[in-house]
């Protein structure tokens, strides 16, 4: 275990922890309340500072799995499979956060918990299902190499489906007003909101990286333990 890498990791973890606390302050206190909303909807708007970055991290995580899947099938090497698995686990957590914070925001703002006709909601729902299925698939295959291959294929096919789902629901056409974030009327009108949002975006990405490093390392340790166990078993 190399200690300099370890120390760098500690520093990164510390920075991330600080960033999360700061992000909380920025989102809940520093950012001004939305001028065009009232009451519960106005307070609920603050969810957006965590909701959108979670969605971004979810997509990023699944993109990483997509690339790792291709790399595994093309070049081989256990590290790609470990990366894919870790990324999906973390991505699924963040996507769960999106699916939970979304309805919490939607009820005060739209009056309903959920609509199917909005492309973003349907895409995230399908995304969640695909990657939950990914983890289920991994759980049901015993052989390591086969598991890695099957999971890689699912990671590739699943990610390719996402833009298609988005396009399909968008053409469906009856999108309820999912707020326009960028452009006029959105964040660019309020520099403080923009700052809070960008900082949260950065924090969540940092959080993703930190969790990914930890998970990959954990998987490496688990593999090492399995290897040592089988060595002991073969000596007896």
């Amino acid at each position, binding site marked *: 275990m190399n200690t300099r890498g370890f120390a760098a990791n500690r520093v990164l973890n510390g920075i991330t922890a600080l960033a999360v606390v700061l992000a909380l302050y920025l989102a809940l206190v520093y950012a001004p309340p939305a001028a065009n909303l009232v009451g519960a909807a106005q307070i609920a708007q603050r969810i957006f500072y965590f909701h959108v970055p979670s969605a971004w991290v979810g997509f990023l995580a699944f993109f990483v799995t997509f690339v790792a899947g291709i790399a595994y*099938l093309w070049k081989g090497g256990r590290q790609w499979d470990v990366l894919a698995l870790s990324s999906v686990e973390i991505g699924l957590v963040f996507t769960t956060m999106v699916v939970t914070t979304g309805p919490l925001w939607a009820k005060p703002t739209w009056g309903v918990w959920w609509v199917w006709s909005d492309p973003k909601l*349907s895409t995230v729902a*399908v995304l969640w*299902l*695909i990657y939950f*299925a990914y983890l*289920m*698939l991994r759980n*049901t*295959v*015993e052989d390591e190499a*086969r598991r890695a*291959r*099957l999971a*890689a*294929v*699912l990671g*590739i*096919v*699943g990610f*390719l*489906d996402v833009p*298609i*789902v988005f*396009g*399909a*629901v968008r*053409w*469906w056409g009856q999108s309820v007003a999912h707020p326009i974030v960028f452009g006029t009327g959105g964040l660019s009108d309020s520099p403080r909101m923009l700052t809070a949002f960008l900082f949260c975006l950065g924090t969540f990405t940092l959080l993703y990286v930190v969790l990914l490093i930890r998970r990959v390392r954990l998987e490496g340790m688990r593999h090492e333990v399995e290897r040592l166990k089988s060595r002991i078993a073969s000596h007896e």
Partner: protein
Amino acid sequence: MNLIGFLRKVLAIVHKDIIAELRTKEMLSSMFVFALLVIVIFNFAFELRVANVKQVAPGVLWVTFTFAGMLGLNRSFILEKDKGCLEGLLLAPVDRTVIYFGKMLGNLIFMSVVEAIVLPIFWVLFNPPLFSLALILVIILGTLGFAGVGTLFSAIAVHTRAREVMLPILLFPIVVPLMIAAVKITGGLLDGQLLSAMRNWLNLLVGFDVIFLTVSYMTFDYVVEE
């Protein structure tokens, strides 16, 4: 590899599947009965609450096709695996894509047979206002996409512990855009719209088929190799 040779090998696999099925008729009969039951249950379920059952008709039709298709997809690979035929196919001196297309065509044919029997029953029960030949085209395109991805995923599912249960878990989220497009077009056609008016949905359907057929045949090798 020349096209005729490729086609001949693919058709050999299709031929094998059809002959095997004609002997027992097990898969076709269970698919047909299941589809029938699904349609009847939906009919009951909606008749009691929905004022205009014709609104839900396209959705019911495609859910029926999906569930029956799931049965067919499952059985096609499970039979192979159980009897050791999959190893036999893999040992044959053919490209793995031949196996993929052969299986996919077989699934497409079985699903189409069941759909052809179910469609008149659907007509009797739901009594849609009109029939359009374009409906056949949409059903074929939808079934093609379903069989395309479904064949790949059933090959994946058959290697897991959970087998039949795994296929719908894997397949349903992926075919969501296919279902949306198919139901949309079917609904439009039954309402009397022209196919040309729904061009972008048709493009989505065709696009889905092309993309996922391509990805499926490219990754099939990795799924079946030992």
